């Protein structure tokens, strides 16, 4: 049976998503990082749209629109605004060097695919293999969070992780119930606002957004 065209598109988009996750992992400039995040949001929105189209689920259109609005427009805009206001344009500083991170990332992807393999077997629909990709991008984003030294990339990593999750939610499972998605979106939005407030507070208090300053609370 030939794979339907929509499925091919979704699979393509999934690969792009993973590629962007890798790109983010290797990115050294913060502005590019935010842009990549916006691109990832776009991919997500498109893939949601395609799923909505192919499965004719109307609420997924809303999801796609919401994603577009929130992840491609509002959040990147907010982040841009923030770093302009905070006057920070520095490079991303990592704790582990980039090639090593990439190697770990590849290992993670293999791990995620293997893990998802039995689940993929179960699925007879278009979503075959997508869970693995979603899981891989979640793990990659998590990896990014724990290798970045500054607060902003860490938050971007966090948001990218949400992207991965969204992808799993919409593409792999054809969308969660709308009320859940709305709730999730709202939480993400509020969360970002709070992040924003935090950035100001942190900067005011620590005179930097370097989170290595925040190691005072310890027991050793």
């Amino acid at each position, binding site marked *: 049976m030939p794979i339907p065209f929509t499925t091919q598109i979704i699979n393509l988009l999934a690969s792009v998503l993973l590629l962007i996750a890798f790109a983010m992992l290797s990115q050294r400039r913060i502005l590019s990082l935010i842009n990549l995040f916006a691109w990832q949001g776009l991919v997500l929105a498109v893939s949601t749209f395609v799923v909505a189209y192919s499965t004719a*689920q109307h609420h997924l259109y809303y999801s796609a629109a919401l994603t577009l609005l929130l992840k491609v427009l509002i959040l990147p805009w907010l982040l841009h605004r923030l770093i302009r206001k905070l006057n920070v344009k520095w490079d991303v500083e990592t704790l582990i060097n980039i090639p090593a991170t990439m190697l770990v990332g590849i290992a993670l992807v293999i791990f995620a695919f293997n*893990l998802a393999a*039995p*689940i993929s077997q*179960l699925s007879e629909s278009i979503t075959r293999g997508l*869970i693995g990709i*979603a*899981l891989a991008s*979640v793990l990659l984003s*998590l990896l990014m*969070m724990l290798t970045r030294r500054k*607060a902003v990339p*860490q938050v971007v990593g*966090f948001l990218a*992780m*949400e992207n991965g*999750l969204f992808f*799993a*939610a919409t593409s*792999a*499972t*054809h*969308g*969660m*119930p709308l*009320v*859940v998605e709305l*709730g*999730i979106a*709202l*939480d993400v939005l*509020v*969360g970002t606002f*709070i*992040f924003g407030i*935090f950035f100001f*507070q*942190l900067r005011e*208090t*620590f005179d930097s957004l370097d*989170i290595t300053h*925040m*190691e*005072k*609370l310890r*027991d050793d």
Partner: protein
Amino acid sequence: MIDMQLMALLLTPLLGGLLLALFGSRKWAAELNSLMSGGTFVASVALTVRVVESGPQVAFNEQFFIDQFNVFLVALTAFVAFTTSLFSRPYMRVEQDHGKLSTPRLHLYYSMYQMFTLSMLVALTTNNMGIIWVAMEAATLTTVLLVSLYRTPASLEAAWKYFILCGVGIALALFGTILLYFAAERVLGQGGTALLWTHLNQVKVDLEPTVLKLAFVFLLVGYGTKIGLVPLHSWLPDAHAEGPTPVSAVLSGLLLNVALCAVMRSKVLVDGSLGTHFAGNLMMGFGLLSVVVAALFLSRQKDIKRMFAYSSIEHMGLITFAFGMGGPVATFAGMLHMTMHSLTKSAIFFAVGHAAQKAGTQQMEDIRGMLQISPTVGWGLMLGTLAILGIPPFGVFASEFLLITTAMHDYPWTTPILLMALGIAFAAIFGKVQPIVFGETTASRLPHPPALIPVFTHLLLVLILGLYMPPYLANWYRQAAALLG
């Protein structure tokens, strides 16, 4: 009818949050806060009576589901939230007098307090696994603001860690939820019902085990971060120590329970699907590790709230362990321990709050001789500490007794480990609390009298439950335990 009651329960804090968002700067905001919390408590009692009388209920188009298990947590949550609001009235006034908090901050505190209560109640009562996630996230967000209330470097650091770690955790839980949905959708079909717990519970046998296994791992790691299971606990001591004391009390006493409740909901499904003890084993492992590691952490603490935060990790470990063991007695013990821990730990935090205010510091070596300056606070702290350490006749001992005796029968090798950890915890905590209560004092009197009614109400309840459990309460617990299997 049930819809109305539920609405009363949820709308009261919502209304409270809105009102306090408007009037939070007024002088009587504290009283309003207590009033709304009291109202919530009354609503929860009404709901409890109803559920205990007529069994599990669904409401609002099946979006909400109340059974004996969560209604007990609802009642507990509303009660502790109410007493904490009573405690926070004098506490926050003193903080304001000391110039630690400005009026706008208090404003934020009161409205967030109500929103936090709301989000916990939603998380407890909802039937939708997705909404549980949303409510948990909301609870995280509100408490982040509460933890960072002082805006000191330390509190910001704590809040940041709390936010990031719990954010990541909760994101993982979302992935777990998605996987759950993925499995459910194949049985229940697409659409709204596939995340409803009641429906899932009916078809749990048919859910795909491999997916559910994976989902449970994500859910456990995700919500486990909120419970404070080692090694996901790192945020917990920071957040407890640096936030205002009433917040520490509700975090320890309530939020951790709510997260555990979410895990339990998932466990019921996973157990049904797998038919093995997989989930239980994981929970027991985490529980045991938490108990041991937290006990070892205790002896090195210098900050009193931080120390009791570790104690919370230890007790959540115990409860997780009990739920992990499963079976009617262990689950019963777990729920009893949840109740006892919430009541006792919040009472301790109340007393600790007053003591730290009187001494002007949270550093234990500078808090001395509480009995001399304020015998009631001193005795409250002393008795609370003894209670939480599992000394009879306090109720914590009753639940620990049930827990350990069951473990002795089912998993005998775990009991020496548990008891040794409890012994270490005893030495660590008691050795530090004793000089705080006894001896010559360094503290001073404060203009506002301490709110001791909450402290002693809690301790009295714990004492009574240790010696006598009313049959209806026992039955209620038993039914809830039966639900959880």
